């Protein structure tokens, strides 16, 4: 075995022959089919992350075009039609095709490693989810390429996105994209939730669950509760558009405001289920670089859960300018302020950890310090937006554009880069360049603030959002020009990131199993981890199993088959061993089902008949997927009799 593998307990007590057998059992065949049908959570997680980062790049280019178009008054780089598609695609791409999937990708990759198991609970479903996501994203971009890009904003307010004012098939593409990505999000969320609750290594009671896993669990549960609303809403709009129902048509007894409730009841939690995994990154990284366990671990867990709950009670602060009753609005102001408290708890616990730690100032930590600065500004402007009177002034202006980028780039993208620098050695077995990382950080930090800080001032100067140009007399030109310069600095930073990745993959230094001497279980595997993750499943006795291993009692799980894909199911609260579980084998049907779903949904854009008849291919694929297989059942039965 590789001598760089961690010296943790998990590689012990395995003969070479047993390890070789595990490798045979879990490895995918080195063929195209093996690659496509893989059920390895690491391959799937990587796939999600890489795809999401590509969408991030596409969304970033669109953002750059928006800044370029606005860089001077009366500019004609693009006209209003293209501009409206650009900002709609930018928002939709970033929220639906980048932020949510990238966080889910990290959860898929790291949750099983951190809780000490071999795979996620429902890998076939996740394999299906990936292709649903990819097909959905490409469909949206295909529409854009043929000048049928969604153009009603990422929030797609009716009536602008409704049958009367949403021309052509543009809004239909958007509605159907929602179906794609929400189906993907739900499938992955169910998988991550089940894995976290039922497949933890023995001894990893809920109190010992790493904070990143907690964050993934909370955000997955939020996804399960939030996403159905927008899916339902988008389909009601689709009904209005395709069969002439009047859910949102005021002149026929519908209500345009209903959509806003449905959208923001999902949309606000969405911000938090992007933000919460990012908080998890931070809570994973800070203890490693502060060289001590997290201060206030339980308080942080409770804060994550509280944030999850409270985030469902804020949606109306996106609607303060509508004519809903004033007293109700005050309630949402109170809720919006209250959600700052769990964030404050976490913030102070992190500072306390840093305070008592012994800091090792590496690139991941640098990105986290950038996060503190940026997110603080975004959080404080968020308080301004939560107050009804202040919101009435800054709502729908560039002030909000500044706020949301401070929150999402500060709160999610900075931590994301920290996470990439932190875990890249684990995933690819290569170290990223520290020097390039520092350059990338400083360029991003400066570029980001130069781009977005001026937008606060523009908002107060009266510049609304989503305008394709403005007259010179407004006096907004100078700050918009500064903002464009900032965007170009960010471009350089992103280029350095790409160079750093390419350089590391090509000739980066070999990463040891645990390059940062961190304490959580993912570092007990080799870098990159073998397909079976752990040669023997670990037993856990503390929050940082690698810093304080189990001293008395068993240190690892014995008795699981090495010739079958077998894992251990444990109890929800205390992670006591419960039953043995045979993971599903790779199959082509989940992928066929994903393409079937794609066929159905794309057909439903163009024809109401497609909504019905299009169900046939995915229906067949789903039946084939679940069709019992005698050989597999016999194997499982044999395992049950004699492991």
């Amino acid at each position, binding site marked *: 075995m590789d001598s760089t593998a961690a010296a943790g307990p998990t590689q012990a007590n395995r003969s070479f022959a047993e390890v070789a057998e595990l490798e045979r059992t879990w490895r995918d065949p080195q063929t195209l089919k093996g690659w496509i049908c893989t059920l390895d959570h690491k391959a799937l997680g990587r796939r999600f992350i890489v795809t999401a980062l590509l969408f991030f790049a596409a969304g970033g280019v669109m953002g750059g075009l928006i800044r370029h178009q606005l860089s001077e008054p009366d500019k004609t780089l693009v*006209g*209003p*039609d293209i501009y*409206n598609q650009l900002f709609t695609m930018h928002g939709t791409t970033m929220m639906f095709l980048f932020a949510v999937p990238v966080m889910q990708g990290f959860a898929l990759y790291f949750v099983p490693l951190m809780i000490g198991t071999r795979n996620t609970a429902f890998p076939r479903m996740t394999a299906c989810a990936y292709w649903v996501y990819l097909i959905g994203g490409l469909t949206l971009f295909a529409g854009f390429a043929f000048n049928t890009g969604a153009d009603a*904003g990422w929030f797609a*307010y009716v*009536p*602008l996105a409704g049958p009367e*004012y949403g021309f052509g098939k543009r809004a239909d593409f958007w509605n159907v994209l929602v179906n794609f990505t929400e189906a993907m999000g739900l499938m992955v969320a169910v998988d991550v939730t089940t894995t976290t609750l039922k497949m933890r290594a023995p001894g990893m009671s809920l109190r010992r669950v790493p904070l990143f896993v907690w964050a993934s669990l909370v955000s997955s549960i939020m996804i399960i509760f939030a996403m159905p609303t927008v899916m339902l809403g988008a389909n009601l709009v689709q009904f209005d558009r395709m069969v002439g129902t009047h859910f949102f048509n005021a*002149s026929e007894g*519908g*209500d*345009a*405001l209903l959509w806003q409730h449905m959208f923001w009841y999902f949309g606000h939690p969405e911000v938090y289920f992007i933000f919460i995994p990012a908080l998890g990154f931070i809570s994973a990284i800070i*203890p490693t670089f502060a060289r*001590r366990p997290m*201060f*206030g671990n339980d308080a942080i867990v409770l804060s994550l859960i509280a944030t999850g709950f409270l985030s469902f009670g804020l949606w109306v602060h996106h609607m303060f300018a*509508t*004519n809903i009753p*004033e007293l109700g609005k*005050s309630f949402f102001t109170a809720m919006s*302020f209250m959600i*700052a*408290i769990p964030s*404050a*708890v976490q913030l*102070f616990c992190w500072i*306390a950890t*840093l*305070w*008592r730690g*012994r*800091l*090792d*100032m590496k690139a991941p930590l640098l990105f986290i*310090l950038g996060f*503190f600065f940026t997110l*603080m*500004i975004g959080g*404080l402007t968020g*308080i*301004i937006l939560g*107050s009804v*009177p*202040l*919101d*009435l*002034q800054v*709502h*729908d*202006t560039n002030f909000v554009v500044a706020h949301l980028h401070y929150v999402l780039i500060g709160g999610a993208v900075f931590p994301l880069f920290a996470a990439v620098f932190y875990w890249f050695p684990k995933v690819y077995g290569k170290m990223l360049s520290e020097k390039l990382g520092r350059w990338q950080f400083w360029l991003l930090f400066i570029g980001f603030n130069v781009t977005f800080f001026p937008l606060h*001032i523009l908002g*107060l*100067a*009266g510049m*609304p959002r989503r305008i*394709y140009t403005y007259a010179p007399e407004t*006096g907004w030109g100078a700050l918009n020009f500064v903002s464009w310069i900032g965007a170009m600095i960010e471009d350089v930073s992103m280029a350095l990131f790409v160079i750093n990745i390419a350089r590391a993959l090509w000739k980066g230094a070999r990463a040891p199993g645990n390059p*940062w001497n961190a304490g959580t279980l993912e570092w007990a595997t080799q870098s990159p981890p073998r397909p079976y993750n752990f040669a023997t499943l670990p037993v856990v006795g503390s929050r940082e199993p690698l810093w304080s291993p189990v001293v008395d009692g068993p240190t690892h799980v014995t008795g699981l088959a090495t010739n079958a894909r077998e894992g251990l199911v444990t109890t929800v609260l205390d992670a006591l061993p419960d039953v043995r579980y045979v993971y599903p084998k790779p199959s082509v049907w989940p992928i066929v089902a994903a393409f079937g779903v794609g066929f159905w949904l794309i057909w439903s854009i163009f024809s109401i008949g497609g909504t019905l008849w299009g169900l046939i291919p995915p229906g067949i694929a789903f039946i084939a997927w679940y069709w019992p297989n005698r050989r597999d059942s016999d194997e499982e039965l044999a395992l049950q009799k004699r492991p």
Partner: protein
Amino acid sequence: MSAVLDAAGPQAAHIGALWWLTFWLCVFVFVAVMAALGWAVWRSSRRARARRNADAGAGPDVAPDLQPAAADERRLGISVAVSVAVSSLLLVGLLVASVFTDRALAHLPLDNALAVRIIAHQWWWEVVYDDPLPDHVFSTANELVVPVGRPVVVTLQADDVIHSFWVPNLHGKKDLIPGRISKIEFRADREGTWVGRCAEYCGLQHAFMAYDVVALPPDKYAAWAEHQRMPAPEPASPAAQRGRELFVTGSCMLCHAIVGTTANGRKAPDLTHIASRRHLAAGRLTNTADSLAQWIEDPQQFKPGANMPTHFLPHDDLAAVVAYLETLQ
């Protein structure tokens, strides 16, 4: 430069006061947290360096500190608890300030208020001055004139999609949602001209859906209103007469109205007193004879997607129509 903080009336002033309170509190919190963070990072990095120098040759990574001193941890716990408590108290304070500002906004005295009705269209504003006397009702477009010192109640309706009414110098926003009627109340306390803009994304020309808000002293306002109630004057020059003829027999009258003529379209701005307005096409162009001619000739050049079509008028006809419209003071 900051329209939001340059208040011209009590509503915007209330919000401005809350803004500065919130702003300084946020600055305080930001500076305090950044100072704590900076201090924490500085002293911990120093500790790590000291440790590394002490066990030279032990490698770059320091062993994790698994048993932090209990007394230190307790002190830290107290600091965290106090910080959270202070943050919560500040938030409660801001909540109270916010709710009281809200109340103040809702309690603007409305005695003798001026009632105006605004209907938002893609992409212009119809402004109707209601009056109990039917012949006192008049309408204009893309321009809201109000008397100084008198409260104004604007009733807001949308004709097509959602728009939002926003004059930052006077008040915050109010959305205009199809099928719903909303109201916004404000008062201008000084003379001035400000720009209002549509703040809710409403399609292709959301960028150019502005209106001028003009506050006049009461006597000047009364004179203005009196003038607006008058029908269009009879054109004197032959060119203007020909222009009117073209207007009422051509395609203009299908959408536009000029009171005192047979043009009675209600799809587009009322032009009875167009020459008295400051801007054309919802803030897109300054109102001059030249820009009016260019606008009639090719509106799509200025507002791509606008509902006014391109007109292929012979040069003389265009000049005549412009000459007529220029008489509509």
